[in-house]
């Protein structure tokens, strides 16, 4: 339609604007540290086939300590686990699992939460009442019990993790979006859009959605960290991805009985989870700082 011609002229391409946004982040030291950690893990996940010294599921020498020599002349930098798999390689490959499923699950929660929040906040009335009461119901339920119920019922698979996280997180996202929309729906530019007869979907996604992005980006970073922890917990409880594929939470679970004797087996996956979550939290703080100053 007609908006395409103007949108060509109105903006620089998306990637340029993203870069400009990242450049703003330079003003926050905390944000830069966070971004550094996150970029590090993303790079690790992308480069896993090239940088991991051994295949993640290959059984080599059991119970090797960090720094022990490997039979092929290499070094087990982080040691091996009880059935002889190289922990460094498993941590590297495990980052792929986390960095695929956590953003996917968060993204799904956001899509559902944003749509419901926009609709509830814009229409108010009974739609809002029903959606809000339902989200209260979900949020008042202990999250972990909810996850266990869903995954124990439908079996552990990547898809079910995504579904469980979406079901549990979307109501929280909906609440945030709804609160922001309640403020924006009474602005004059919304009235102007109504007066020129725009459809509701246009008002929701073109007029309102772009103006709630700031707080949502901050929340998304924090929530992504929380989902990473959740996936770790599910793995630890044995509800994560089915073995033998490496999964940080699962690695801790498999070796927890040997923690006293061989702390390295659980320590390194723990460190991996904490550092990634910490990175996301710092990044969120940094973005918040930049948004407040802007």
């Amino acid at each position, binding site marked *: 339609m007609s908006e395409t*011609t103007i949108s060509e002229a109105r903006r620089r391409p998306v990637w340029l604007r993203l870069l400009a946004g990242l450049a703003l982040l330079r003003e926050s030291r905390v944000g830069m540290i966070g971004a550094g950690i996150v970029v590090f893990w993303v790079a690790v996940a992308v480069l896993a086939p090239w940088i991991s010294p051994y295949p993640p599921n290959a059984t080599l020498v059991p119970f090797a300590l960090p720094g022990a020599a490997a039979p092929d002349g290499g070094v087990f930098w982080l040691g091996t686990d009880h059935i002889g798999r190289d922990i460094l390689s498993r941590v590297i490959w495990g980052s792929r699992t986390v960095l695929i499923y956590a953003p996917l699950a968060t993204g799904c929660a956001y899509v559902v939460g944003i749509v419901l929040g926009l609709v509830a906040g814009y229409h108010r009335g009974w739609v809002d009442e029903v959606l809000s009461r339902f989200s209260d119901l979900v949020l008042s339920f202990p999250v972990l019990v909810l996850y266990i119920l869903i995954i124990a019922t439908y079996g552990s698979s990547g898809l079910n993790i995504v579904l469980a996280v979406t079901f549990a997180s979307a109501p929280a996202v909906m609440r945030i979006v709804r609160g922001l929309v309640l403020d924006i729906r009474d602005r004059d530019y919304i009235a102007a859009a109504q007066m020129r*007869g725009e459809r509701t979907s246009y008002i929701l996604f073109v007029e309102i959605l*772009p103006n709630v992005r700031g707080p949502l980006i901050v929340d998304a970073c924090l929530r992504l960290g929380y989902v990473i922890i959740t996936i770790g917990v599910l793995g630890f409880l044995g509800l994560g991805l089915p073995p033998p594929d490496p999964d940080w939470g699962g690695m801790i679970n498999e070796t927890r009985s040997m923690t006293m004797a061989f702390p390295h087996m659980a320590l390194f996956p723990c460190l991996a989870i904490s550092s990634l979550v910490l990175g996301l939290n710092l990044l969120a703080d940094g973005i918040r700082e930049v948004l407040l100053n802007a």
Partner: protein
Amino acid sequence: MSMSMSLPPIEAPRDVAQEPLLRVDDLWIGYRSRAGTVPAVRRVSFALGEGESLGLVGESGCGKSTLAYAVMHYLGRSGVRLHGEVRYRGEELAAMSPERLRAIRGQEVAMVYQDPMSSLNPTLTVGEQLMEVPLAHGTATRVQARERAIAMLGEVNLANAEALLARYPHQLSGGQQQRVVIAMALMGEPRLLVMDEPTTGLDVTIEAAILDLIAELQRRRRMALLFISHNLGTVMRVCERIGVMYSGELVEEGATDAVFRRPRHPYTRGLLECLPTFDTDKRTVTLRPIPGQVPAVLKDVEGCVFAPRCMHAQAPGCTTVTPQAEPVVGAPGHTVRCARHAELPPWSPPRAIDAMDAPAVNGGEALLRIEGLHKVYDSARAWSSRGNGGVHALNGVSISAHRGRTLAIVGESGCGKSTLARILTGLEEGNRGTVRFGGVDLAATAVEARTAEMKRAVQMVFQHPEGTLNPSHTVGFAIGRTLARLAATPRRELRRAVERLLQTVHLPPSYARRLPGQLSGGQKQRVAIARALAGSPALVVADEPVSALDVSVQAAILNLLLELQSESETTMLFISHDLAVVRFLADHVCVMYLGQVMEYGTVEAVFQPPYHPYTEALLSAAPVADPDAHQRRIVLEGSLPSATRVPQGCPFHTRCPRKLGDLCETTRPPEHHLPGGHRIACHIPLPELQAIEPVLGPVRAEAGD
């Protein structure tokens, strides 16, 4: 430790006889930011003696509030005093110990801010907050403090003080809240009161009452007053002296009367020429906005700060040498910071040549005919309502607007003017009555049910420049989308059509690529006007389009509206609370009060007797920036009733100074019909209304006596 606990005695230095109460000398204040320190106040010097009142006026960003805070020695974390002195009774504020400063701030110098709700603690009763002042300073016992609080509430004209002490701030109206804040400031018996826009958020009649109260208290208590406002008329009403600020500098200072009659600085003159007054209108006078805009960030410019916008500026004198504050010859106490002030021609206000020669054209066909329109909002939550029947926003409104003319709707908050706008534009539906517009009834047709042609025909300009444009979309997108939807402009021609519209509102075509965050308030309002005009509407509803703008910008927007209207024969419904603007712009005026029409007629008829008593009160309350205007003062009792409980009979009877008796309380008043379609809804017989003296008489009233 015990030494610091007992407050240091407030004793003045020996040379107090020569020292004024407050002296500010060559003051520079800056704000630290990431881009370095940005100056906000520069080279400001003034003195304020015991019992004197000084008003500081200027447009937004001129540094007037910063100056007020500097007098309290409170600049926040990012503010820094770069240079200069602020002396209270000869004592430098910056050199005071924190205890001494605290004692001074509570007892000697007090401040009143713009928003009363941010000065009052919502969890404490009025009594607790008032008594806190003497109790915190240890100058009274609880019983004494309570007595003083009651006395002080009486002094700010709040009736029933005893009962008021037990109330919480949210139980009071805005006017009452501001009175409580003033009472709180006076509890410490200050010698100097600093007020930062104390009446800006209030309705006109409430504002007038508070301004009169401030002026009276200041005189009675012989207290010095530093009064900050953006409104020249307000300052005129309260202060003996006035200082005009521009871009961080005090460009002119002198006796209020002298500055208004014989302004020396080109900026002061410009401000006065921007203001519509009550004896001028669009047929007799054009407003002359100051060209250019206030510089966003003050850099330390060479020469005069106003030179880039000044029509009298001459290179190289004005652009290289910073002008000093010089006394005006023959006017003691009048100083001006202009290198050429002695050479400037004498100034005379833009007066009407003879208003009688050009009467408003009454004819023309009625484009819009509203009859018996009602609108009741149900209470927000039906199950919790206590059967009060909701909010009566409109209660039987009947008016008409003529093609190509401007109908102004005037009234205070709760009068229903915004509801009327929302019904016309289809954002709400009326409950009863009709709105005839080009053969269709708009009253019962919400925007979803309107045809494209109807949507195109009625468009709106909103009040707040901040909310009117979507911050995520460019100017070009906002206008282009409207063009595509309403004018069905083909896609290929869209860019050119957007540029053409921008040109009609005097913005360069390159602005199409800008986001609203990159525009000033006036520019946003121009874009909003361009957007409203995109579909060539027959009716434009303008809801307070200039009330949030600075004076000089307001003049430019009013001129733009006039120009566009004369070109396109558009009918305009202009909603405003500013009577001077209405007098200037409107052809017809409708005065509303709590959802009912009090008076309707041509602008000449409404602004002259016979008036409705409410119109009379509004005219008396309007701030007038003209020392020659003779304004009769009428004080309205009480506060505005809430629209949830509209009084029976005549809605104005609770505050009407001309109330007849029980009749007004029980029976809805009949309408007096006068020639020319002039209508007044009042029980008072017409001959009595006709005998009322004009509220606003220029020199004529004095000459008659």
